[in-house]
């Protein structure tokens, strides 16, 4: 869908901005919001582009920088931390050969940390795109990444 179609679907009012941004980003392969799209959005909705950028950058689910096809979000809040989050982070960094915040050279994965995902019942937890993976061990983490790579 184009930006104007998405706006039409949700409605032109400011209160729909987050829903619109969610849908625009979901339609982009690089999991981010593009400058030209925000520009268009600003014109149609009659909101200053700086205001839109400031709103989008406020929320962790939106990115203004291109990211990989799959977003790995490892929870770093205390309940996951005490269950071994740091080891999982190291396992992910080693397995993907990138550091936290980076994207793999093949643009497949971006590695991020996040605050509590509300899945602490199965801590430590990561979310890859819309799927939650819990009770992570180093081996399980590597296996999850492998299975996604294999599917690609």
């Amino acid at each position, binding site marked *: 869908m184009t930006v104007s179609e998405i706006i039409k679907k949700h409605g032109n*009012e*400011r*209160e*729909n*901005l*987050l*829903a619109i*941004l*969610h849908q625009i980003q979901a339609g982009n392969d690089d999991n981010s919001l593009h400058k030209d799209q925000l520009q268009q959005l600003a014109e149609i909705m009659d909101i200053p582009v700086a205001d839109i950028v*400031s*709103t989008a950058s*406020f*929320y*962790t*689910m*939106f990115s203004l920088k291109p990211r990989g096809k799959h977003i790995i979000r490892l929870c*770093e*809040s*205390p*309940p*996951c*931390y*005490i*269950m071994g989050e740091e080891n999982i982070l190291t396992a992910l960094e080693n397995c993907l050969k990138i550091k936290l915040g980076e994207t793999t050279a093949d643009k497949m994965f971006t590695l991020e940390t*996040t*605050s*509590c*995902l*509300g*899945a*602490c*019942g*199965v*801590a430590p*937890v990561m*979310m890859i795109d*819309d*799927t*939650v*993976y*819990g*009770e992570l061990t180093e081996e399980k983490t590597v296996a999850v990444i492998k299975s996604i790579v294999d599917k690609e």
Partner: protein
Amino acid sequence: MEKPRITVMVPIDANTVPSGAREVKNALSVAIGRANLSNEIKVIETGSFGPTGVGALVAIQPDGVVYCNMTVDKAQEIVEEHLLKGRVCARYMLPGRQVILPTADNVDARTLQHTGRIVLDNCGRIDPENIEEYIANDGYEALGKALTAMSPGEVITEITESELKGRGGAGFPTGQKWSFCAPVVADQKYVICNADEGEPGTFKDRLILEGDPHKIIEGMALCGYAIGATIGYVYVRGEYALSIERLEKAIAAAESHGLLGKNIFNSGFDFEIKIKIGAGAYICGEETALIESMEGKRGCPRLKPPFPAQKGFKGKPTNVNNVETLANIPAIIRNGAAWFKNFGTSSTAGTKVYTILGHINHPGLIEVPAGVTLREIIEDYGGGMKGKFHFAQLGGTAGDILGEEMMDVPMDYDLMEKVGHVLGSGAILIVNESININDFLHSCMRFFSHESCGNCNPCRNGMHAALDITKRLKSGVAYPDDINALEEVVMILHSSAFCPLGQSPAGPVTSALRYFREEIERGVNRELNKHDMPRSNRKMEAINV
């Protein structure tokens, strides 16, 4: 169709889905179909049973058997052995804890003595996607009663008399909150259900929404009737896909049954519910930040007053309540305030839903009378410690850290306050001696500095200063003055930050110092000279002026 002889219940919720619960449920259905038993044995999807950390669960009713750590293979075996041959597979049974199991006909929802559950009475017992099951368990009876036999004022009085306190963390009396909003005259008012749930360790609201979404709809409609609002919003975290999906289905079902929409129960009362999806910001759980976010803006808190009851969403009178608070409303209206006060302590009526997690044997979701002690939670509900007890943190990352001394204090809103602690959101994190207190504090500060909305100076700078200090304490390279500096920063934050988020670090930091000062001091390197303190600490000077 014949009434099924056996019901196989499979919880599909935030904790079981990552362990393959959906695949297990499919495997069960396929195997039962293959055995030609689909008429006699019904497989239903429910919300959470409560226990976590035990993989995918399956319960067989009326046998009352619960299996844990289910896989597709084990599920097939259960069909072969248990369902076909009647032999219980003891080796897969959930060890050592009671799941209150639950079909429509073995629980008398009216007395509840049986289970002691108010909020979670349906959770894990009914199919959340089937409105008929909710209705069969007294669902929408309260709404019918209120709309046909009670005035809005009487609804508020009932809630006030029940002494229900908000379960979103602050513990503000719900009836009183409603009575602020009700008399305000406006062309439109709103009810908001706060399902942003970002407090680390808290996942109760999610499981309530996943397990019994109609209860929230009914609670919101009752609130709408009481305060004179015709539109309700549920603000849900973007990550809670299953909550959103089940809510959408529940809203559609309620609409088609005439329980939402125009002229509900022929009373002339109209009420509709819409969903707003968040985008990942803890501060958006704060009610005025939530309203900003609903308006499509950055989620920064507003100055109060005016309170949302006067000027809320789009400048109109708005009442914001937590999911669990709203989930208590139907039962109170149905059974009366006096009934509700049978549960809990003299200062906190009702029950409290906790998520218990960390180094205990049986983590999970529990609903207990207000006033149980930490020791009871660990021993009776949590199945005992894994390792030796070190400390507990109550109410999420913004909550206080408690040492062993506090194990026997009854936990309700007032009593905790008396001993200088807050009950908070309902997360109880139990930590054993494998975790160093300095590492833990660093992890808390990492959370706060990430979630500071950046709107006010003390919080924006103070969080980083405190994070730097905890980082040094963690690595054992803190300056001799660092602990004093840390205390000072959190106290400055406490007194000068714009909203409760910025004031929060004082909770964990001062309480940790109260019980574990010696251990924290081990992060200090006495050889270091305080004049070498890094520049980043000058930020503190900046907030001091």
